[in-house]
């Protein structure tokens, strides 16, 4: 690998950069298709969203290049600094921001808006990487039932969680951007990679399953189901030692807690969030009302067929049947105009980018770089999974963008920063001594 300092791309992973560029350009073309209007046919028209996106893309290129120009050590050294600054800006937006649709999360400068919550992702990732790469830190690996063990084992996990929970609460409770807050769940994957006990994941998965089951059936039924499953496990698989029985009893108590908490949580959701859950679980059928978006989104995608209707030929997206089709529902345009071939291409491009990031992370010598890399992969994957999942009716409607693809300057810039810091770290990996 050449270490020519005059070439900013020296050591930078070509595949990642190419995939990034391809996604951004395809995104832009699809935004044009989604917003397309006979009266404004010029793709460079900055009064339209595709024109604006071009400006955002130019900005993103400048940002990417700048990141590659700065010394990699800068990101490691100032990780907490970044976190502090971005967190501060996210607090300031509550006072200086402009209210849009009931949430105060935007800075407005004339015609353009910046949503600082988007930038929280890379800041949290930096801080988390910094914290976990500290050699003294061990993310708990074992599960024991002694109090001091518990504290010793889980203390650092809890600290790590604080890095995510604080901005998540800030964004959810005060900026009222639930979608952007939920994203921080993705960092669980990083903790898992760094040694977090599988029990956490199992517990989490069980709790989530119970939550859904309780919403579908009644509390009593779901408690009985939990009891049956645990009892079955006790009889069939587990050696009936006293310890195991205590554990099973504990699991049951926790399950009961989840079941009882479900209705409380559900009843404290915003009405539109309840609706989205109900529609996903098919407890409510309302094709003209709350389920309208998802229904129209599925029609648009489903009508694309194998090869799609052709660029700019989508009737569903043209007639504005699908709302938000340039941002959260951009995948509909792809599905309708490019068909199955186009949609899978986009999905594979995103998946390739993510897997490439994981692959590169694993070859890092520095823990910081590896952990940061996993953070990038996790955040990207979470966005892809939730965004596309909601357009095809497999996920509730959560308003988060498709990385590098959806319209929006903040998300594009934030993802660019997130990704290119990693590209820089990776380019620099050979300079780092263990």
């Amino acid at each position, binding site marked *: 690998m050449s270490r020519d300092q005059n070439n900013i791309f020296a050591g930078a992973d070509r595949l990642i950069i190419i995939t990034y560029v391809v996604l951004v350009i395809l995104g832009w073309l699809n935004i044009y298709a989604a917003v397309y209007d006979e009266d404004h046919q010029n793709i460079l028209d900055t009064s339209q969203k595709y024109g604006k996106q071009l400006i955002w893309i130019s900005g993103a290129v400048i940002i990417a290049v700048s990141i590659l120009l700065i010394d990699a050590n800068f990101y490691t050294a100032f990780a907490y600094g970044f976190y502090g600054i971005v967190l501060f800006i996210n607090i300031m937006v509550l006072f200086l921001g402009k209210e849009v649709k009931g949430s105060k999360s935007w800075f407005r400068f004339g015609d353009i808006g910046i949503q600082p919550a988007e930038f929280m992702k890379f800041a949290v990732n930096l801080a988390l990487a910094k914290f976990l790469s500290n050699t003294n830190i061990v993310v708990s690996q074992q599960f024991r039932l002694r109090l001091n063990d518990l504290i010793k084992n889980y203390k650092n996990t809890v600290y790590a969680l604080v890095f995510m929970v604080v901005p998540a609460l800030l964004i959810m409770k005060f900026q009222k951007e639930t979608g952007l807050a939920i994203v921080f769940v993705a960092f669980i994957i990083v903790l898992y990679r760094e040694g977090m006990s599988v029990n956490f994941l199992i517990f989490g998965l069980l709790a989530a399953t119970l939550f859904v089951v309780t919403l579908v059936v009644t509390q009593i039924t779901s408690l009985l189901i939990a009891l049956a499953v645990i009892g079955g496990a006790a009889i069939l698989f587990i050696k009936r030692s006293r310890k195991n029985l205590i554990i099973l009893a504990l699991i049951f108590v926790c399950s009961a807690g989840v079941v009882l908490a479900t209705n409380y949580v559900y009843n404290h959701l915003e009405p539109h969030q309840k609706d989205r859950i109900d529609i996903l679980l098919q407890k409510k059928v309302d094709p003209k009302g709350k389920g309208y978006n998802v229904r*129209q989104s599925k029609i648009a995608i*489903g009508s694309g067929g194998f090869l799609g209707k052709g660029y*700019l030929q989508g009737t569903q997206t*043209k*007639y504005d*049947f699908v709302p938000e089709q340039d941002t959260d529902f951009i995948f509909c345009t792809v*599905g309708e105009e490019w068909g*199955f071939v186009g949609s899978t291409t986009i999905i594979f491009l995103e998946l390739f980018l993510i897997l490439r990031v994981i692959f590169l992370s694993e070859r890092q010598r520095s823990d910081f770089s590896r952990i940061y890399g996993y953070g990038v992969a996790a955040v990207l994957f979470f966005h892809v999974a939730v965004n596309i999942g909601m357009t095809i009716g497999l996920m509730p409607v959560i308003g988060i963008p498709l990385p590098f693809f959806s319209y929006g300057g903040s998300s594009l810039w934030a993802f660019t920063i997130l990704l290119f810091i990693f590209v820089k770290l990776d380019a620099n990996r050979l300079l780092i001594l263990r």
Partner: protein
Amino acid sequence: MSNPQLGDRKFIIGGFFCLIILIYICRLFYIQIIDEQYKDEAINNALRKRTEYPVRGYIFDRKGRLLVQNEPSYDLMIIPKETKGCDTMGLCEVLQINKQEYLRRYKKAIQAPNSPRKESIFEKQMSAPVYAALQEKMYRFKGFFVQKRTVRKYPRPIAAHLLGYVGEVTKEKAEKDPYYREGDYIGVTGIEKSYEEALRGIKGIQIAITDVHNKMVGRYMEGKYDTLAIPGKPLYCSIDIDLQEYGEKLLKGKKGACVAIEPSTGEILAVISSPSYDPNLLVGGKERARNFTKLYYDTLNLPLFNRALTAMYPPGSIFKLIGALIAQDDGLIDRNTVYPCAMGYPPMGGKPKCHAHGGGKNLPGSVAASCNSYYSYVFREIVDQKKYPVFKDGYNHWRDQVKTFGPGTRLGTDLPYDKPGNVPSTEYYDKVFGKNGWRSNTIVSLGIGQAELLLVPLQMANVVATIANRGYYYTPHCIKGVGNEKYLDPKFKVKHYVGVQKQEAYQNVIDGMQGALEPGGTAFTNRIKDIVVCGKTGTAQNPHGDDHAVFLAFAPRDNPKIAIACIVENAGFGNTWSAPIVTLMIEKYLKGKTDRPEVEKRMMEANLIDKKKPVAEKHR
């Protein structure tokens, strides 16, 4: 810290990512390639349906004269996406709306369930001058077009309650019934409601497929599913326009109702509810809403209230006819039965009271003179007859017999909303007086049509039609036939036999009714030259003020052509206010004109609503 043991977790994470993506790909494969449903719906979304509205069926009277016709009306439609370059200010000026209103309507047109690409109504039923002004400048209003529909027009402003009106369909109805869309018209009351399905016709639909530029690229399935509008069927009403109009004139200025039936068919010849309104008030867009509100809030006169079918009145003395029939049928009395009358019913100390009619009467005489005491005895004879040791069984026998004449149940006419009236049950009296707290004497005033007894005017007319037929009736209906084939529901061709079939009984009662219009009868002053009218007066006490004047009659005695009942609220004696109306209408119907112009003039001019009623003539 890099822990070599954890290196395997990259496979778990990577595998998890791939698994999720695989699930998504499968899902995409399913909805994009296997499931055709979404493609159909997408085509549906891109289809432009253009509705062609059928002409609503005309309504004719029994002699084929036009009762209801149509008039063109124009709705201004908007397709919001195409309004670029529209002369908005000019449009506002023509429609006389301001910019805020324009924007409000524009917004409504682009929001669900409307769509910016689809047409929706911008201005309903424009008046002729507005339409003319608009037509001139239409080329300047891009994205707007005019849709032609029709609204009702009534050549003669009569029979408002009978005909009902046409209004916009309610949201609930539009959601439930696939025929209707919001903004469509539907019969709301009267004939327009009951015969909605025949009158509305069938909408035509033209379906076109559009491309991304909203240009029509062809007809959907080569026009296989396109249909032409089929006009509504004409309706042949049993009403006689002249009689209806004449009746409305006679009842003008009075509160009340009048129903005339042709006994041999059950066809309703006239059905009048007063005060009424001009049906032309309830057509058109804005005007209808304004007029409706005005009529709706006229709580003093209740012009929208159809008294002929839904006002329940105590029938008063006309009910004695039924008592006389039942008692004869049971063999309790005959033509020569005489009961004492001491200006009242002796066993209850002279209550109910009676009037001076000159001594004890035989049966026909008691009908002609309307003796209260006589019919109190008759009621007791029926209820307390030996056949029923328990008097409540006797009462139920009386009640069952009464109900065969119609009172107490909905007659089942073809008009919506007729009320059943009321014939109280034993359970009711048990509740009021206690289980053992009442006897036949307690409720003896039922025998003279008072107490809790209630009938709607239509039922009164049905009773007299039944007597005219000597024992049966056809369910009253206001339609001779639907469509050119003149289809009539078979249920209106069924003879309903009442509980009394003894022809002699009818003979005696009808003799009495004829006597009522002869010297010594209660309606002698309203006799008609050349026609034998059989009638019965009633003066119904009620809790709302002065007595209701009731009169019913049929004529001629043999082979009756018309049976008619009339009630004028709080007017006093039946003979003073109702009998003249009834006899004038009989004259009008049978002879075409009246021989008593002075009576006609007095009735038409009398106004009992707006000023204190004139002092009633001395009752004879």
